[in-house]
């Protein structure tokens, strides 16, 4: 695993997120569920807690966008880049953008599973860089895995716990 240089991390364990808009590829309930589960992956192994808000500015703002969307890092249409997220910080820091030219899915392997992509992006939003371990969630290339039996790989557990410590409630 690798952490962001300079040990960028959130100064609180209580973080908020907001879903600004939805992809037409899935029902809103499926998007909500995918995002919630993606945060849970990280909350299960750290003291971090995530609360959804429905208005105002959250620490992690989530949006589905295409091409040039105003942050200087335009998406490239179908395939290629699927999403990106910004490292912890104020303003755009922590925000996650998903390329809506992709076809996102809830559980199918046809298209890109939103839960898997979101869980990866939230790793960046919490302070993790890409890992060179091909089995890690933070490996930069997308690969489908069974989301029903998904367990956060040990490399990612080690990375996030190096930043925030263990979940003491377990």
């Amino acid at each position: 695993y690798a952490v962001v240089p300079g040990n960028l991390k959130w100064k609180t364990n209580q973080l908020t997120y907001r879903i600004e808009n939805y992809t037409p590829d899935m029902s809103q309930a499926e998007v909500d569920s995918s995002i919630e589960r993606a945060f849970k992956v990280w909350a299960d192994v750290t003291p971090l807690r995530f609360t959804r808000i429905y208005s105002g500015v959250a620490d992690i703002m989530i949006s589905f966008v295409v091409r040039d969307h105003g942050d200087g890092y335009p998406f490239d249409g179908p395939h290629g880049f699927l999403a990106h997220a910004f490292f912890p910080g104020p303003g755009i820091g922590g925000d996650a953008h998903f390329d809506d030219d992709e076809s996102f899915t809830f559980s199918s392997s046809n298209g890109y599973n939103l839960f898997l992509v979101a869980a990866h992006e939230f790793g960046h939003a919490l302070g993790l860089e890409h890992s060179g371990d091909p089995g890690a969630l933070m490996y930069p290339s997308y690969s489908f895995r069974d989301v029903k039996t998904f367990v956060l790989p040990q490399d990612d557990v080690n990375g996030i716990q190096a930043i925030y410590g263990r979940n003491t409630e377990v």
Partner: protein
Amino acid sequence: GPVPPSIGEEEEDLAKNYLKKLYNMKESTRSFGRMVSEMSEKLREMQEFFGLEVTGTLDAETLEVMKKPRCGVPDVAA
């Protein structure tokens, strides 16, 4: 140079764009020789990160990795 003749122009462009976006390869404003040298250096970084054979040349295996769908955040090697 780092690009063998078997790699097409389109694929070479793909590789250049990939390295510019993810490995901070600079736009080519210098002589061709120096650009090739930087591309080779960035290819080495990328190949090392992905556990590929580190050659500094654009081969089929490296291109295959570049074509995979991925996250748009630069790799740690960058």
